[in-house]
């Protein structure tokens, strides 16, 4: 049960980019219902730029990779998701401590720092019907699984399942943050687009790490 290596982290981002591309219209459709119909386009624009960045200038270590991804997202997305996803990665960078590969606990700690960045930036609490509602249970599950000795791949699979549950749990919620909050009670009954893309992010990590373990 080794460290998560740079290649895997890059594959994480590429996998995320691919699922965003695939789910682009679905994400936009979710945002049309309770927002302004751009979440798919936003995430797709951002992750396309991130992948282009990876192709052009491969990062030298995880911190550089996260910083590059975060800066690219901040620079290219805009809207709410740009600063939030951007901050998530920007905050992960220092949390790696400059390591060349990330042991599972460090990876989880970095993700947690990222989530804290999202919360600091967006002030959302669990239950506000945002990406935080997918990320929080995911990172809790990750920590718990690692603590109970599961492999990184297993732990991330648990995290991904928790993210999916968290995402699904946003449906009945009344939004209190972001654009959906303007709808008041009418926001209930719709799945949150940001929680949906966040679940894709966790799923992509599970896939990438499983590939490394499998290899």
């Amino acid at each position, binding site marked *: 049960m080794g460290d998560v290596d740079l290649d895997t982290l890059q594959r994480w981002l590429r996998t995320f980019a691919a699922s965003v591309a695939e789910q682009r219209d679905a994400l936009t459709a979710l945002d049309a219902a309770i927002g*302004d119909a751009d979440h798919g386009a936003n995430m797709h624009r951002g992750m396309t730029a991130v992948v282009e960045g990876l192709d052009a200038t491969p990062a030298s270590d995880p911190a550089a990779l996260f910083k590059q991804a975060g800066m690219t997202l*901040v*620079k290219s997305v805009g809207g*709410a998701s740009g600063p939030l996803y951007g901050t998530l990665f920007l905050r992960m960078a220092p949390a790696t401590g400059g390591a060349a590969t990330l042991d599972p606990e460090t990876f989880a700690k970095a993700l947690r720092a990222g989530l804290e960045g999202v919360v600091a930036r967006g002030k959302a609490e669990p239950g506000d019907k945002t990406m935080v509602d997918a990320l929080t249970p995911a990172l809790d599950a990750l920590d718990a699984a690692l603590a109970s000795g599961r492999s990184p791949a297993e732990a991330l699979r648990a995290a991904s399942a928790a993210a999916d549950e968290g995402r699904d749990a946003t449906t009945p919620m009344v939004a209190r943050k972001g*654009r959906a909050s303007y709808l008041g009670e009418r926001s209930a009954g719709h799945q949150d687009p940001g929680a949906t893309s966040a679940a894709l992010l966790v799923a992509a990590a599970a896939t990438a790490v499983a590939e490394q373990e499998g290899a």
Partner: protein
Amino acid sequence: MKKLLNDPANLVAESLRGVARAHPELRIDHENRILYRADAPVSGKVGLLSGGGSGHEPAHAGFIGPGMLDAVCAGEVFTSPVPDQMAEATKNIDGGAGVLHLVWNYTGDVMNFDMAAELAAAETDTQVEAVVMNDDVAVEDSLFTAGRRGTGAAIAVEKIVGAAADQGRGLSELADLARRVNDASRSMGMALTSCTVPAKGSPTFDLPDDEIEIGIGIHGEPGRRRVPLASAHDIAEMLVDPILADRDFTGGEGVFVFVNGMGATPQLELYLMYNEIAALLDKAGIVPVRTLVGPYVTSLDMAGCLVSITRLDDDMLRLWDAPVATSALRWGM
């Protein structure tokens, strides 16, 4: 979707090329999607920066020029611009007296402007203040949400503060004035139809032929509630009543009334709406002394309107009347 475009992905970029060709009085940084008045920075004057998603034209670029904004950052359709743009623009409009960010209150805009201010503080010694505009009474429990949206009040804020900046007032005085104009403003909008975001290619929401959305914003998002299609008279009440319930508009020098077309609503209808609105204000003892009727803060091709009312004190009134020379608002020069 039927639109005049080539590839939706290039819509904003290509449109900015057209703006550049049509408006030699602007200087456009196409890479960063920043529009400047050609003579920015104006030495000694506080620079005024606003911006937001595209799709609201003439907002925001239509308000660049003497007496109003110094620069605007253009985002993708309905998507806030990014911090780099804002920081770059901030640097380039600082005439030595600092820069005021006039931010429309949306989560994305606020966060991106926040990050821009952090960037600017890290990279330059430009003094930056930000004022968030949040006039939309459709958001009722605004303390427990993202807060009220910035909608029509921006016109009054940007025009009035723009004139005050021209007079040489200082950064914190202008920020204060911006807050006061914003506080003095309330807005409420409605949609007859959804708009169609080009990248999506179909209407953001479905609205049956006999229903309308009340309490919409300016991004094609659905409103607070859906009601049966009503007469202009009744719609005017649905918009004006919550505005008047939220704030006292009597006294002062009277009010500025802004009847904004959301994009596809003919001016013939907007003036008819204004007739209804003015009658309601009359009844409430509120005196419109300045009016603006037309599509100024649009939501692409949405049909509907937004009413915005600002109570003017004598300073604000004088500043509203001061010369302005932008492509969307122009008088006195």
